[in-house]
């Protein structure tokens, strides 16, 4: 029996586990990976304490911090569902069911799909959702990044030094995001920004050879060998079963929380991008992990468990 099971090991989950370990709570972390979306970020320049750090490097610091404590870690495991009966939770994974008094859900998000023809067919055949993973394979090639916010800017900046040319394609009239990143993209001589542009289709034979777009009202094809979809993330919550109802989600599918990171189920907390938090930032996720964990500690202290 654990005092706390943390689902997910991104910034939110790891911070929750660190705080729990410091309160001597018997804690288990279950996660498919370590670092979550942070590990897939390129350059990070807004995490206080690090003027500059790469995503994988920050994730490594998080992991080292976690491993410093006596916390159990089930890596490469994903949580399929969580059940609550009377006062106890059961967290189910493909390998069994584990009991705990409280749970922090910090399972983050997954890449949002465009939903256009060719997207599924060419996944990993030139189309990818992870610039930091697959970017280097497009060395010297012409590529397209689809999206108009910070994720798209991040992917574009990663690719400017790798690809021969980067087409940045956005539906909006202009790119929105961090001014510093927008400035860097503007200063890159191998980026062409296509604003007011809708991506209609990804095509090719075995691998991607181009995309069809509608730019300011007229259709055209761009010859690219790589397509990076960077249109944000959607929440990735596990199924939660509860005797007196279901866990409340918001319209976007995120777990509804209050300012204490409490969900609609007592003893179950959510933190980071899986929650209804308004800002999806590494530092916010870490801060929420802290709030959730301190909430868990208070919940356990006021509730009498045998």
């Amino acid at each position, binding site marked *: 029996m654990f005092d706390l099971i943390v689902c997910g090991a991104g910034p939110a989950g790891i911070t929750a586990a660190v705080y729990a370990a410091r309160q001597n709570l018997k804690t288990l972390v279950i996660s498919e*990976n370590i*670092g979550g979306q942070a*590990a*897939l970020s390129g350059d990070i320049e807004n995490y206080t304490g690090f003027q500059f750090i*790469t995503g*994988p490097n920050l*994730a490594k610091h998080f992991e080292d911090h976690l491993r410093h404590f006596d916390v159990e870690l089930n890596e*490469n495991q994903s949580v399929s569902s969580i059940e609550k009966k009377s006062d106890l939770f059961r967290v189910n994974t493909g390998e069994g069911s584990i009991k705990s008094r409280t749970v922090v859900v910090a399972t983050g998000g997954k890449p949002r799909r465009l939903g256009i023809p060719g997207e599924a067919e060419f996944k*990993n*055949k*030139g189309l*990818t959702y*992870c610039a*930091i*993973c*697959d*970017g*280097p*394979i497009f*060395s*010297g090639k012409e590529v397209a990044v689809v999206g108009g916010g910070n994720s798209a800017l991040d992917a574009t900046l990663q690719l400017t030094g*790798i690809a021969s040319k980067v087409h940045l394609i956005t539906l909006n009239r202009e790119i929105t995001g961090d001014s510093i990143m927008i400035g860097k993209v503007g200063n890159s001589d191998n980026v062409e920004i296509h604003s007011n542009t809708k991506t209609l289709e990804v095509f090719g034979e*075995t*691998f991607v050879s181009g995309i069809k777009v509608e730019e300011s009202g007229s259709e055209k094809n761009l010859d690219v060998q790589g397509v990076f979809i960077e249109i944000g993330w959607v929440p990735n919550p596990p199924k939660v079963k509860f005797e007196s109802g279901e866990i409340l989600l918001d319209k976007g599918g995120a777990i509804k929380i209050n300012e204490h990171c409490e969900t609609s189920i007592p003893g179950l907390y959510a933190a980071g991008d899986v929650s209804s938090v308004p800002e999806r930032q590494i530092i916010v996720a870490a801060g929420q992990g802290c709030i959730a964990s301190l909430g868990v500690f208070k919940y356990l202290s006021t509730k009498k468990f045998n």
Partner: protein
Amino acid sequence: MADKKVMVYSTPTCPWCKKTKEYLNSKGIEYENLDVGGNQEAAQEMIKKSGQMGVPVLDIEGKIIIGFDQKAIDEALA
């Protein structure tokens, strides 16, 4: 089991490539690492073998494994 020839096609930045190599290291498995970012020949070889462009790809004595799949790696090494 240590005698099987293991090739890892990877990029220097991809977190799952790192995980894969860490896993092989933890099992004391020797492998040849091919950087498909810096080495176009290796990239073409990986695409030909796996029919796709995602990393990592493992070639364990001809058995192709796409992504970090601990179970598949164990089976291929057994």
